[in-house]
């Protein structure tokens, strides 16, 4: 057992590190003030183009699609090195991580030619239009419809939880094209122009106060049949390509989220009626539990990296990541705020440590839902890893337009 790079990995890391030292020099420090996603578009484009010119984009993509044709390990190494800087990468994460791989897996040669290179070099921004107000975990229950009209399809409906929709040029959208087929069978995926008439993106305000997502309304939006991804009725299969990539992307602990070290630092400062908080048994237990979750997930990811670096597929243990991370964040933040008594409740005043914990408490409630709820992820572990039978799905074989809510 060792934690060192293989010689090939070490060479790639050294090269990436040396390149970043010059190319990313401007991003060494965090931005002086928080920058909104919208304000960050020009800077995000600039950084994507610099990386593209140097061969650090599409690292795992086939060369035929403008990628580098390297292994997942190379991509992870570059991202590890890049994350030591504060370079703006969020804008392209969904487009390049989920949308474009779906385009080049299921799109026609003409679509690949038109869209893949432009996305990779940071020219065009993409979003993923899947969830709807009445279809979250049960994604196949979507109602946004696309109706054939000559060479076009006409889209009507509403999407929600769409990251970056207001900044995007294009999106991939899953629609219902055959309401008389069972729910998984009547779906079709398209590429939609986010600037087309009838598309309206409205920022959605979250309970945390932030606005990371949009709701997007489609009213008579025309899409050419040439912009279909996969066959008519194959939309479910196509969307699985996208979602597989999402679960990988949403896996780890958010880089800025507080962890066991923050709890230790807080407990060291707090004096309770019974003495220093750090000496209380329940506090030490909570630090230990948080350490076990935080570090356990980091080490579990190392196991996956180890498999990747040997050219093997990672084991199913990766599937525990998000369900552990999100709930641990919430419990740790709640414990820390409890420990702070009323100060943990007050948002006025200037304690940055407490603000970070309050932010984590609010954000973790969303993280437990995003990209697969705690409950759906437990179903997946139980069914795919442990082989337990699937949930009852009474509407699975019913034509969609005959399904009635109980």
């Amino acid at each position, binding site marked *: *057992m060792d*934690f060192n790079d293989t010689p090939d990995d070490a060479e790639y890391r050294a090269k990436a590190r040396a390149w970043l030292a010059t190319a990313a020099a401007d991003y060494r420090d965090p931005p002086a003030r928080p920058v909104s996603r919208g304000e960050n578009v020009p800077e995000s484009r600039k950084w994507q183009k610099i990386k593209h010119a140097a061969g650090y984009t599409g690292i795992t993509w086939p060369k035929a699609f403008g990628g580098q044709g390297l292994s997942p390990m190379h991509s992870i190494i570059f991202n590890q090195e890049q994350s030591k800087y504060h370079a703006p990468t969020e804008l392209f994460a969904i487009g390049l991580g989920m949308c474009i791989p779906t385009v080049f897996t299921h799109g026609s040669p003409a679509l690949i030619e038109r869209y893949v290179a432009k996305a990779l070099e940071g020219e065009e921004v993409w979003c993923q239009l899947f969830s709807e107000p009445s279809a979250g975990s049960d994604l196949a229950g979507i109602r946004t419809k696309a109706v054939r009209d000559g060479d076009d399809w006409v889209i009507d409906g509403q999407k929600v939880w769409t990251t970056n929709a207001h900044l995007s040029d294009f999106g991939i959208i899953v629609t219902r094209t055959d309401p008389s087929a069972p729910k998984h069978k009547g779906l079709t995926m398209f590429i939609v122009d986010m600037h087309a008439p009838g598309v309206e993106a409205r920022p959605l305000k979250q309970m945390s106060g932030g606005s990371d997502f949009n709701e997007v309304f489609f009213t008579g939006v025309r899409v050419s049949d040439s912009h279909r991804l996969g066959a008519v009725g194959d939309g479910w299969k196509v969307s699985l390509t996208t979602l597989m990539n999402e679960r990988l992307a949403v896996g780890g602990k958010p880089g800025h989220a507080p962890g066991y070290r923050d709890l230790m630092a807080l407990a060291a400062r707090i004096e309770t009626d019974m003495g220093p908080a750090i000496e209380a048994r329940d506090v030490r*237990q909570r630090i230990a539990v948080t350490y076990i979750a935080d570090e356990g997930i980091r*080490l579990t990811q190392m196991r996956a990296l180890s498999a990747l670096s040997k050219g093997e597929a990672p084991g199913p243990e990766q599937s525990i990541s998000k369900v552990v991370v999100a709930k641990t964040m919430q419990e740790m933040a709640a414990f820390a705020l409890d420990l702070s008594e009323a100060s943990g409740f007050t948002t006025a005043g200037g304690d940055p440590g407490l603000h970070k914990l309050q932010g984590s408490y609010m954000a973790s409630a969303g993280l437990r839902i995003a990209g697969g709820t705690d409950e759906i992820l437990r179903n997946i*572990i139980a069914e795919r890893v442990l082989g337990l039978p699937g*949930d009852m799905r009474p509407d699975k074989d019913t034509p969609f337009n005959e399904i009635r809510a109980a």
Partner: protein
Amino acid sequence: MDFDFSDDAKALREQARKFFDERAGPAVARASMNGTASFDAALWQAVVDLGWTAARVPEAHGGVGMSSEAACVLAEEAGRSLAPIPLAQALAATEALIALGTPEQQARWLPGIADGSVVAVTGWAEGGTASPAKASAKVDGGAINGTKSPIADLAAATMAIVSAAGPDGPALYIVDLKGEGVGVAPVDTLDLVRRHGTLTLSGAAADPLGTTAGYHDWLDRAAILGSFEAMGTATAAMDMAVAYAKERTAFGQKIGRYQGIKHKCADMYIKLELARAHALHAAWAMEAGAAELRQAASAARVASLDALAFAAEENVQIHGGIGFTWESDCQFYYRRNRALVAALGSRNFWADRLVRSLEQRNAAAA
């Protein structure tokens, strides 16, 4: 990066799993519970013949000289199979002799452990305290007085490595159980398969094994082996629960379809994989002699005890009424959980040890 066991260790694990699948498991555990023998002597002889007590012993002392990874995988498979033999104890004692023994001590004891003529156990527990500072067993002028209890597999043993208060703090001592001033008596515990004993020492000869620092180092190593053993036992309990959830029908469908059941099974898996990540890290730290040893061992210990407690308790729950009967195998995992806690200290003790090691690391970095 290679964060996994070596091919040698994996091959040994496969061999051990296959052997114990055939020769141990709940039925053998039940026979041991119902019998009067303190351990399964025929099974133990077969394990000695396979060379597993010799796996870790250096070649110079008649062993195979494998890395500590060998001890980890054997502990896990022993735990999975509930094998009523003193293998986990022998592994912990061997680790103490290899890490802390003088050349003379190693030459005296290791060849016998390798060939089975010596059965070695370790004794750490003392009734109601986990604090080595409050230990009743004391050493003065080469003689040891006090009581160590409960000690797993004591009746099978010919030699014991026990912790006691020495002149410079807690330390380990080798006691020849055939010597003067040594009393061995069975003691009843919640674990009806693994027999325990009380060791009463009245001026017995105590051969010091390492220093107080060495004692702490061994405690971490023993905790790592105990973590693998606990993970093995937890995996067996989870497998039993999952198998039953796939087979048992209620309200017209397999109970494994209900989220109330399948989410318990998923949580068993989640807790086990967290424990496995820490245990692998600790196995690396043990073999590499890394500075993170204490922190990694403590985390592995707490995470594996959590995984085992949850799997053992919810396995009974998933089985329902049948799981609470004497005839069900659920009780073996439920009871073994208590044995593994008692052997080396509770979750509280180890959570505190983990946080203390994090504090020391922070202080050193400051």
